[in-house]
């Protein structure tokens, strides 16, 4: 097996004195497609921010065995201010790392890369639109382009399916299927019914993390994991998810 991109070892983190995640252990490999599920307030977003280096480390250790990790981050929708005067193209450009802090302009290769990205995503016609004039799906697409423009090793998506319609959701999952061949993906979602058929493995996050090395998960297991996700209420075809491994 190849080396992991990222290792979390006995990690704890939180806010001020409140510890939100405790004793987290997780390895992410280059070909991983991990679904992260858990109840509201369970700490999914906190875990994502920890991986991205946005959270203080209370204890434990995070390291990157194969060197510096390029990440692409699609934050939870509420993080982005839609009324901010910024265009689609500018948002996508912001996904490119600044090479020289004293001359932080886009290089011509980077400019071409942004145009290519917009073209590929079918956003070229909206390039100079302010983000306030986009539909929910178009905005998510823009933010996904921002995450992808630098060809990340690890793509992290925090509930990409909230505030978008079913059509966009299907489209999105189609792309993720393709992208998962090129990069590792961490997909946070409440909607375990829809994500389980695509992801390879599942992690339940509720104060602690339970890693489940398969995409088949039962309600029983979630109970054992102390991960009260309401399977029945979510997902169009719940029994597909509920099926217990019958080969065991």
């Amino acid at each position, binding site marked *: 097996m190849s080396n992991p991109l990222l290792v979390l070892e006995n990690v704890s983190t939180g806010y001020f004195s409140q510890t939100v995640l405790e004793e987290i252990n997780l390895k992410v490999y280059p070909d991983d497609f991990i679904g992260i599920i858990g109840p509201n307030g369970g700490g999914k977003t906190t875990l994502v921010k920890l991986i991205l*280096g946005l959270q203080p480390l209370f204890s434990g250790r995070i390291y990157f065995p194969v060197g510096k990790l390029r990440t692409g981050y699609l*934050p939870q929708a509420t993080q982005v201010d839609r009324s901010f005067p910024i265009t689609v193209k500018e948002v996508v450009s912001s996904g490119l790392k600044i090479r020289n802090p004293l001359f*932080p302009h886009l290089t011509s290769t980077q400019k071409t890369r942004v145009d290519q990205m917009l073209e590929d995503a079918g956003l070229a016609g909206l390039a100079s639109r302010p983000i306030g004039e986009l539909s929910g799906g178009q905005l998510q697409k823009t933010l996904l382009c921002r995450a992808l423009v630098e060809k990340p090793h690890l793509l992290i998506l925090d509930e990409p399916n909230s505030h978008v319609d079913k059509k966009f959701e299907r489209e999105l999952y189609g792309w993720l299927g393709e992208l998962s061949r090129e990069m590792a993906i961490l997909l946070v979602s409440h909607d375990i019914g829809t994500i389980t058929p695509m992801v390879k493995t599942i992690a339940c996050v509720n104060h602690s993390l339970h890693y489940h090395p398969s995409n088949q998960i039962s309600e029983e297991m979630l109970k054992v994991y102390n991960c009260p996700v309401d399977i029945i209420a979510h997902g169009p075809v719940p029994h597909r998810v509920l099926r217990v491994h019958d080969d065991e």
Partner: protein
Amino acid sequence: MMMSEFFSIFEYQFFQNAIAAAVLTSVIASMVGTYMVSRKIVFIGGGITHASFGGIGLAYYMGLNPFAGAAVFAVMTALGIEWISDKGKVREDSAIAVLWSLGMALGIIFVFITPGYTPNLMTFLFGSILSVGIPDLLLLLFFAIFLVILFLVFFRPILYTAFDPEFAKTKGIAVSLYRYMMSVVMALAIVLSIRTVGIILVLSIFTIPQITAMIFTRDFRKVIPWAAALGAFGSVAGLVAAYALDIPASAAVIFFLTIQFLIIKAFFMLTGRLLNLRLKNMFYRYKKD
């Protein structure tokens, strides 16, 4: 008043200085104000503005330059507010309100206990654009040039930290550094503008031209030059009106900026979405070529 008599006002040095000050202040406010309006932190600007009055009072009491006192208080307040919001331990808006009123209170106490000559408070509250001298103008000019260079060189990190700081951090941008730097820039821009438009009116020159510009464009990059042009036009018109109607200059400037906003807003509303959309489409098409 005869036409020629009316235009002769432009020959006076003090009036030329006032126009230069209005234009330079508009340029400074266009950049800093667009940053403030976009980030929705105009209230922080209010806190900085009023807290600086404490510095003015203290400087008077100690016999120092009041604007130096204002600058020190403004920068400290701005850094303090940024620190509070960075740490998130106190409610930011309440902290601003405290600094806002405390600054005003300190200012009044110090002015009151300063023996002898009591400074003309009106000068600070409403500015004194008609008595701006060459040193003031040079200071405004240098700061405006500094800001233009800063925004030209560091445009991307400034914009990205304002738009989505968390994401910017994941791309290795020194977000805290930029936030603190912009706080200091905001404080200095506000203090320099107090000289021209005064504490009570300073916020409007940082917001009205910007929201007017945002009727035309919602692209940060373009809001700035639009805001500079609208601010300069409105404030020069205000100065002329102040002379013609014999009313206080800074109040007339703000009044004109507001009228300008209302006229443009009304125009866009009356001509309807149709024309608005057509103009925008033309603009996008032009952009793509």
